[in-house]
């Protein structure tokens, strides 16, 4: 769908980026990082961030240079149609895999913690249906929805940090490098593809009122998300000790479960579930929409909303293949992230070289 009026501004983009990346503070990603880094879990995203900063800035620089292209068009423009399709398909596959592994994890979380008696498939279908229905409305609706729900989610986040800090012990973040300096560096670099959405969202480069809005939005949203992730992970490290943190699968829920507000409110974890649920719906709405958009852009499908249903359905089927959550998270996701990281690290450099080559030819 062509956006003629382009009403989207900074705030919608910031909200969307916050949902899609910042909320990795509350899903199963910390459990993945804590596995080896232990209580240095909060340093891992800092390293990932620094590692990805270079390629990301190059990509942003290129987008700014060739004003009128989005991610896929830029790739086509710089390295040609054939090689471009190949690279774009590679990026699409990575995003697709990241989406469905994440989706399975979130489903298992909802199923296991809140609806233990319901079959996973039923929850999955309902979740996916809502995602597809909302995503069908287009980027403007999603952006406004993200902006509208942001207050609920921010209140939840602040409340969680507030109650958790009561129980947190600051000195638990020591020894500073947890599982070892080398381990922390390796974890941070090899799993930095966990934040690959920041690259994928550049597909929306042309959809904003002015492209400079996109720049401000992505930097603002990115830094807010970064702050949220680091502070959440630090709180987890301060709450659970280094030996316990890598045993816990759902750190966010566990962190809200062990605290009590005074004598009367002893089981407060359900209060924090509402904002969490909202944010996860939005996250997958945005993610699904971006993935379909990229697919549509590669094969020049104008009305790519029609792809939401088949792509969502295939994602669901594929994500149900791993026999259990643990296999999905600790084996499948870990491996796939390690493979994806070099792709996302290198492709902006490739584009840069291509652009340099093009300039010289002129």
């Amino acid at each position: 769908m062509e956006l003629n009026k382009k009403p989207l501004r900074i705030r919608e983009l910031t909200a969307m980026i916050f949902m899609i990346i910042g909320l990795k503070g509350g899903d199963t990603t910390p459990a993945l990082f804590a596995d080896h880094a232990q209580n240095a879990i909060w340093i891992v995203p800092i390293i990932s961030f620094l590692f990805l900063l270079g390629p990301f800035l190059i990509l942003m620089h290129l987008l700014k240079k060739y004003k009128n292209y989005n991610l896929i068009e830029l790739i086509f423009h710089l390295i040609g149609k054939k090689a471009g399709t190949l690279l774009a398909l590679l990026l699409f596959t990575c995003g697709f895999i990241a989406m469905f592994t994440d989706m399975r994890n979130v489903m298992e979380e909802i199923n296991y913690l809140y609806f233990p008696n319901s079959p996973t498939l039923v929850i999955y279908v309902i979740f996916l249906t809502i995602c597809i229905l909302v995503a069908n409305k287009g980027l403007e609706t999603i952006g406004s929805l993200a902006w509208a729900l942001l207050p609920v989610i921010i209140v939840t986040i602040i409340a969680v940090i507030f109650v958790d800090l009561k129980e947190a012990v600051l000195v638990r973040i020591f020894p500073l490098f947890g599982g070892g300096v080398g381990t922390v560096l390796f974890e941070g670099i090899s799993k930095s593809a966990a934040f690959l959405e920041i690259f994928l969202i550049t597909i929306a480069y042309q959809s904003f009122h002015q492209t400079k809005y996109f720049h401000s939005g992505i930097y603002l949203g990115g830094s807010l998300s970064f702050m949220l992730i680091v502070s959440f992970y630090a709180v987890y490290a301060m709450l659970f000790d280094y030996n316990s943190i890598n045993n816990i699968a759902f750190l966010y829920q566990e962190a809200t479960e062990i605290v009590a507000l005074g004598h009367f409110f002893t089981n407060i974890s359900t209060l924090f579930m509402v904002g969490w649920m909202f944010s996860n719906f939005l996250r997958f709405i945005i993610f699904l929409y971006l993935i379909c958009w990229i697919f549509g852009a590669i094969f020049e499908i104008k009305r790519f909303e029609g792809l939401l249903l088949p792509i969502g359905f295939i994602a669901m089927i594929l994500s149900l293949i791993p026999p259990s959550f643990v296999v999905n998270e600790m084996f499948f996701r870990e491996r796939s992230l390690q493979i994806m990281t070099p792709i996302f690290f290198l492709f902006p450099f490739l584009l840069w070289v291509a652009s340099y080559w093009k300039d010289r030819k002129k």
Partner: protein
Amino acid sequence: MKKLLIFMLLLQTAVLLSGCYDRKELEEQAYVISIGVDMTESEDVFRFTFEIANPEVGSAVSSPSTQEPVQEVVSVLGTDFLSATSAANVSVAKEISLDQVRVVIVSEKLARSKKFIHLMQTAPSIIDLKLNSQLVISKEKAEEFIRTNKPKLESRPHKYFQYMLDRAKETGVIPEAPLVRFFQITEGDADLFLAPFATTKKDPKEEYGAEDNYKAGEVNIKGGNSTQFIGSAVFKEGQMIDILTGEETRFSLMLDTTLPQQDIIANYTDPLRPGFDLAARVQADKVKVKIDYKPTGKTNIDVYVSMHMNIFAVPSTQNYMINSKNRNILHASLQKQLQEEGEKFIKKTQEKYKLEPFYWSLHIRSKFLTIKDYEKADWANKIYPNANVRLHVKVRSLEFGKLLRESDLRKVRD
């Protein structure tokens, strides 16, 4: 239009049906307030006792003529919490829910056995059982404890445990011991874990010591409920090794930086008339622990405690309020008493337990960069037992209740 209507209808059924799987009716739930666990003859099988509250009793909205008892106590055999819950459902009509469990009571015999840690390992994987519920060690069998414990005034069991634990915590004679702390400390493998010690069996000491120099069961109380919460069970590596008295527990809480400091009321010897005691309310500031780590040789641990004291009762009627010379004597004496008792207790932990219950291992961690180095340095076996611990107690302020001076009893007797 018709298509749309059908679609909407289908959508609604989907939403409604999803609720059906996990629907829970309040009426159909039996809420367990406390779980007791005991040893049995055979390995790996425990006796679980569930105390189920009757929500109708004691609430203002229910009809006053309810004839049902306050609680139901069911006890079954099981290998872990979950299997025991389903086994208990054989005799309980409602679905047993562990959502509201406030205390997990474990008998001393089980806590002292090696099986205890295996039992506890099954707890975190249960979604229902919240990790903020408290662990309590009972001197007798946990089943007996739950059955004998009949509070006279707080008939609703969940209120009883809540008030009882809060009150005892306020006087500092029992520690705070949520299950999550047990796991943190046991898995950290560098400190001692303390859990409240309780009993319903009386075994009173005849002589009256200081009011807090007791373990549960030793306090000479007449009338009321026979349950006593005082002192704490000491766990080393997930196994109970000893019992601390109320006073020792108070010191361990005071020296622990991770726990919120509470005002405690305690007795101290009157320096001018040693036969008498003073009652004081003590408010300790957050403890500062400084560790000077020496990889070879003795590590120095400096502990700074500063507190504010409020003297409430001076039965000897010595004039400490106005007379500045007496006041200085009192100040110095209180400081010395606290210092000596604290040092005595620290020495005991170093020599008898070879480990501390103060969670001080946290403070040495900043000296290491990685967990590997930290574990190699071995706080539990190498550093602490040989360390040079220096306690610095400082009484920062001394207040005296609401009287300006005690009346002179000698004149009264005249």
